Structures are given as structure tokens and as C-alpha cells.
């Protein structure tokens, strides 16, 4: 028997679960670790859901909790950078007619992000998700000016990794 709160939570989470999956993809390198982190994010979200007032969008709140869990509370340290699992971000089968540039770019992007440190990962992730600087600053707990500076540095690092 589920309570009203549980039902709302499950609806919210199910609709936004892609956010958690993307966070898991950039912070872990294999499926087991992905599932573990996903579960920890689910636990953290549920644990704090009763305090979530709904004055912010659920997805906004979810970005914060998911990133914090990945950065600070996730216990297993199977996060060494490896290229072996890159195939899991190659979604479509290669064919001669199909233009796979975007697919290769995505794979390269994931690989590059995975090699960055936890904070830079978060910054780049929020940039790719098109979050405004105000929200990025609030999520990370830094000033907006600082967020801009840090973001530019993180982007420079990313560019270097993508095109050395």
C-alpha cells in the first residue's frame, strides 16, 4: 500500500529518471556501478522528498540531489577512467548510409567528461543540460560570477581533452 506522497514521488521520479541516468553515465564506467549509483540517488531523493516543497521544479531539485550523491556520498570507488565501456553510449548501429558523426561525438564527449574531476563533471553536465548560471551557482553553492569563471575553465579543459 503506497501513500499519496509515495505515489507522487514515483510519478515525478519516473518521468525525470533520465536525469539520474545521465548523471550515472558520467560518474560511473560500468553497468553495475551505474545501477548502484542510480539506486543511491533514488534513496536520497525519496529520503528528502517530504522536505521538497514544490516551490522549485522537481527536475531542478533532482539535478542537485543526483549530483551531490554522485560527488559526495557515493561509496564505491569504481570510477577510474576506462574506455572499455564506451560502447554503451553508442546507441545506433553503424551503417554506410547513416551519418554517425553525432553518435561518435556523443561517445567522445562521454569519454572526455569521465576523465574530468567530480566538480568539473558537474559543471559540464549542467552546461550541456542548458542550465542557467543562476541555477548552476545555487546547485554548487558558489557565486554566479565564480560559476562563470569555473565554467569557462572546465570548458577549456574539455576542449583540450576532445581535441588535444
Amino acid at each position, binding site marked *: 500500500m503506497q501513500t499519496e506522497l509515495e505515489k507522487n514521488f514515483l510519478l515525478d521520479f*519516473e518521468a525525470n*529518471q533520465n536525469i539520474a541516468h545521465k548523471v550515472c553515465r558520467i560518474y560511473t564506467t560500468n553497468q553495475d556501478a551505474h545501477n548502484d549509483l542510480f539506486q543511491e540517488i533514488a534513496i536520497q531523493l525519496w529520503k528528502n522528498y517530504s522536505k521538497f516543497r514544490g516551490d522549485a521544479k522537481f527536475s531542478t531539485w533532482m539535478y542537485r540531489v543526483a549530483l*551531490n550523491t554522485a560527488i*559526495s556520498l557515493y561509496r564505491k570507488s569504481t570510477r577510474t577512467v576506462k574506455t572499455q565501456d564506451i560502447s554503451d553510449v553508442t546507441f545506433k548501429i553503424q551503417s554506410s548510409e547513416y551519418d554517425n558523426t553525432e553518435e561518435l561525438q556523443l561517445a567522445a564527449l562521454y569519454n572526455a567528461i569521465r576523465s574530468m574531476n567530480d*566538480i568539473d563533471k558537474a559543471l559540464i553536465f549542467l*552546461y550541456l543540460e542548458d542550465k542557467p548560471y543562476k541555477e548552476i551557482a545555487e546547485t*554548487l553553492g558558489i*557565486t554566479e560570477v565564480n560559476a562563470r569563471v569555473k565554467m569557462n575553465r572546465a570548458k577549456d579543459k574539455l576542449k583540450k581533452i576532445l581535441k588535444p
Partner: protein
Amino acid sequence: MDLSQYKKAWENQPDEKNKISALDIYKMTQAKSTSIVKWILIIGLLEFAFWIIINHFTSGIEYNKVYEELNLTYFFKYSYYLSYIIVVIFLFLFYKNYTSISTTDSTKTLMRKIIKVRRTVKFYVYFNISISIAAIILLNILIVNTPNGIETLLGIDQSNTDSSNMITIYVASQIIGAIMMILILLLFYYLLYGLLLKKLNKNYKELTKLEELN
């Protein structure tokens, strides 16, 4: 080089293939968290239980009769009580740290709190090691100051002379014993907490980088 083409690729990425159903999400939320701070609390509690059991089983041992003869029973009793009180205080601090940490804080606030956890654990380890050293020193002062203390402790016939040689051996073995005990304690704590705190340490360094400009 422009990142916008990569950003476009990111935006066009398909949704996760293995969608988790609401039922599975529900099952997940019923599982226990495995966060680092929780583990520090659990290990602290287990360690506390471990020492209580050790003390409980060693208190009845024959050897303690020697301490009785040396009038050291109270010394042991009160030092145990004192260390229990202090360990309970630390466990309370671990628990408070555990409850104050929330993923809904901003990343920086969250990390600050985690650094506090790290500091508490560090203090706890230093405290336990220094109290062991203090106990060894105090115990030896008491034994040396008791007439025929060393002889009684070692169970040697007091009429047997050549006691200066024996005292040298005694002091040397005490020092070696103390060093070994401290090394074992350090290893014990490294295995228990050091490995758990490794990741926190790494994030701490990243936090200081984040604060550089503030």
C-alpha cells in the same frame, strides 16, 4: 574549437534504454543507503562494541590478579570508564554528522559538512592513539613507583638479585611493546577509516579549488 556541436549531440542523445519502472524505483527506495557517512557511524558503533567485548572477556583473566596486588585495579577500572564516556561522545558526534548531512544542500555546503566528518574521525583516531600512549606511560610510572612492582608484575622471586639488568630488559620490552601496539592501532584505523575517507579527501581538494575564487 566549438563545443556547440557536442552540445547538440548531447541534446539529441536517446533516452536510457533500460527504463526503470515505478515499481522498481519503489523497491529501490526501500533499500538502505550506502553513503560514506553512514558507514563511518556503523563502523564506529561496531568498534565500540568490539572494545567492550574485549574488556569484558579480559577482565576475568588470571593476570589481573597481579594488577590487584599492585593496587592498579582502580586505575584500570576508571580509565575504562573514562574512555567509554569519551567514545560515547564521539559516537554522538558521528551520529550528529550523519543526520546533518543532506543531499539537498548545495554541493559546497554538503562538502563542508563532510569535511567536518573527516575531522571528527581524525580527532577520534588521534585521541585513541594518544590515550593509549598516556595509559602505557602512566601504568609504567605506577609500576616503577610501587616497591618491587616490576618483580611482582613479572612474577619473579624477589630474593633473586641482578634486578638492574632485569629493569633494563623490562623497560626495553615495554617500549617495544608500546611501539608495536601503536603501529597495530594505526593499521587498524587505516583499514577501518582511511580507506573510507580516501574519497572524501579527494573531494576536499576539489572543494578548495572551488573556493579559490570566492
